[in-house]
Structure formats: C-alpha cells, structure tokens
C-alpha cells in the first residue's frame, strides 16, 4: 500500500512541479522567486495538518489506551517535523528577496518555529522514555498541550498585522490568483499528502514490528485493535 502512495506522490510531484515552473505565469510583483510558493505553502499546510492528526491519534491512545493509535502518532512526528522544517526553510529563502531579511520575529514565523520545537520536543520526550507505553502517554500530553499553537499559526496573519501574506486560498471567497497557480499549488499539496501517508505507513509498520519483537506476548492483550 505504501508503494502505491509513493507512486501517486511521485506522479503528482512531477505534475505539480511542471505546472508550477512551466505553466504558471510569472508574478508581476515578485518575478520568478514567487515559485517557491509551490513548495512553501503545501509544506506549511502539511506541517499543521500532520500536527492535528498526530494529536488526534495521541489523544485516542491516551483515552482509549489503544496502542495502535499511539504508534500512528509516533510515526507521524518525524514527517511533521520535516514539513515544518521545509516550510521554515523555504519561507526564509523566500523572505530574503521579498522582505530583505532571512528572518523577522513576526507572529506567523515565530509560531511556526515553535511548531518545530514542539515536534522536536515530542520526539525527544519519546526517545528518552524507555517504556513505550509510558512514552505513549507522556508524549500524548505534550502533543495535546501544544495543539493551541496550530490555530495561532493559522490565524496569526489575521490577529496581528504582520509582514507575512494573508490567506489567498479560501473556500468562501473566489481565488485571487491565476488558475494555473492554484492548480500547481493544489497538486503539490496532494503530492505532499501522498508522500506523508506513504512514509507514515512504512514507519508505523516498522514501529509495530519493533514493539512486537520486544514484547511478543503483547499481541494477544486487549490493547491492540
């Protein structure tokens, strides 16, 4: 199944990059540099979305005491951190030509950086607790506490007047950009989705295998769905 999603991801990436770099028109304000948007925006979206999904699974694991959902949360964290890192990095790369600085302490940038810290904290906490069940629960609490950060990232451009761009894709308003730009972005977003699913599936399978090897007898106990 993971292979299928990988395949899908690569096809979509090729398509998305093609649309983004060859079909979409040059921006009249920013020139060519705006094309970073095709990586930046999908990565930023995914970084938040994966955090939400991760917290969801962690919460389920905490409340229902189901191991598989905690493993899902565990498997999602590195991908989320990667997406956050990409969003930050491409953002900084983009900021140089447009704002004249790699970094400013703007609300969206800061909260996105905090998201990266949260992912790192989550993984560090997991790594330092030996007993996997304790690690599940402790890291779930951290994930849940950190969830307040996601709306802050998303709405920061509305709540504070910032340097960063406001939302340009919205379900309620008609899009304010060229259709080909929009297509490129959406296709790339879909590609990132597929990639995340594929990688997380592979990782969760490995986690299950490791844990089962560690405690073969667990397989018949109540926790596993």
């Amino acid at each position, binding site marked *: 199944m993971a292979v299928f999603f990988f395949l899908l991801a690569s096809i979509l990436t090729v398509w998305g990059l093609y649309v983004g770099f060859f079909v979409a028109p040059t921006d009249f304000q920013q020139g060519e540099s705006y094309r970073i948007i095709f990586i930046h925006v999908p990565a930023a979206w995914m970084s938040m979305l994966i955090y939400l999904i991760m917290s969801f699974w962690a919460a389920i694991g*905490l409340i229902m005491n189901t191991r598989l959902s905690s493993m899902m949360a565990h498997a999602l964290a590195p991908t989320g951190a990667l997406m956050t890192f990409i969003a930050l990095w491409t953002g900084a790369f983009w900021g140089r030509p447009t704002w004249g600085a790699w970094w400013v302490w703007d609300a969206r940038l800061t909260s996105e950086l905090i998201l990266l810290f*949260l992912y790192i904290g989550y993984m560090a*906490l997991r790594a330092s607790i030996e007993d996997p069940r*304790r690690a599940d629960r402790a890291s779930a609490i951290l994930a849940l*506490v950190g969830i307040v950060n996601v709306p802050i990232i998303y709405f920061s451009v509305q709540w504070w007047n910032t340097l960063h761009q406001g939302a340009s894709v919205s379900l309620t308003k008609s899009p304010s950009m060229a259709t080909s730009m929009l297509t490129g972005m959406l296709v790339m977003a879909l590609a990132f989705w597929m990639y995340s699913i594929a990688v997380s599936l592979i990782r969760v399978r490995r986690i299950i295998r490791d844990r089962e090897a560690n405690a073969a007898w667990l397989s018949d106990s109540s926790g596993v769905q």
Partner: protein
Amino acid sequence: MYKAFIFILRKELLLALRQKTDVVTVLFFFLIVSSLFPFAVGPDLNTLKIIGPGVVWVGALLCSLLALHRVFETDFSDGSLEYLVLSGEPLTVLVLAKIGSHWLITGLPVVIVAPLIGLQFGLSAGSLSLLLITLLLGTPVLSLMGSIGAALTLGVRGGAALTSILILPFYVPVLIFGAGAVVADLQGLSIEGHLSILIAMLCLSVALVPIAVANAIKIALE
C-alpha cells in the same frame, strides 16, 4: 479541597524557608543577570534604557526555568509524590498549589525586585509600572507552562535538559509579549493587544495546565 491547597502551600513555603536555597538563589540569579549587565555593557544610559525591559524579562524567565526541575523532582525521588496521588484529594488542586508555591518562590521575588533593576536601567515610571504589570501577568504563566515540562520529564534520563527543550516553545511567546509590551510602549505603540494576549494565556493555562500536569505525574509514577 481548599484545605489541601493551603496545606501544600504551607509545606512548600516552609521547605523553601528551611532550605532558603530556592528563594535566595533565584533572587541572586536575577540580580546577577540584571545588575551585571550595566557592568558588562558600560554605563551609556540610552543603551541601557533600550535593553532594560529585555534584560529583566530574560532574567525572570531564567529564574523560572532554574527552579523548575525541582518542582516535582525531589518529591518524586523521596517518595512523597506518591502520597500526594494517594491522598484522595483532587490531584489538580494539589498540583496547582505546588505550582503556586513555585511562583511565590521564583516569580514573586522577581516581580518585587524588578522595579529596582528597572531603575538601574533608567526606565521611566510609566515603563516601570508597565513592566511590573507584564511580569505579574507573565511570570505565573511561566510557572504553569514550565511545570508541564517538569512533570513530563520526571524520572526520565535526560531530565533537566529535556525540560528546557520541552518548555521553550511555551516560554518564548510569553517573553515576546511581555517584553514586547514595554518596548512597544516606549515606541509609542498601542499595548492593548499585548496585554490581552498575556491575560488570555494566563486564564487558559490556569484552567488547563493542572489537568495536564496531574496526568503527567500519574504517568511518571507507573
């Protein structure tokens, strides 16, 4: 429940008084951080005025972080945390009492001394009182947020380091809005937004943190 809260508070304060460690260390730290700066930076009043609020806020943050690892750690290693859990009183209340005493020991002294330090940096009366308000609103948030990190890392190998990593994301916004308010005011900008965010953070964390911490403690004892 109310009685239990008071008892924990009394015990923690007596302990602090007996050890003197916490209160004095914290004050010392704060004084070192903040009064060494004019020293190290030189006596130019304009520079000092600009960095003043930042120095005070960083000092407050460090003080909070410094005593944090010990909030639950000693109780954990001498076995008295178990009695808290097994007392039958709601753990969230007990936890709140412990966090409250952490604030009384690390936050309050800083708030009290801060104006003195501020004077050293040549802050005006208006800036000073604003600094005081942001500290009063912000330092409890530091204690609250920090205690999540402290509770999650109980009995974990890399304790203190991990604590810092875990709570940094929660500390940074407090610092930004706390110090930011004073700086914005100096620049003649509106500070309502800053203050309302600090208040929101305080309310939210008082409501939610004790629940998270209580659960983290139970997990640590397993």
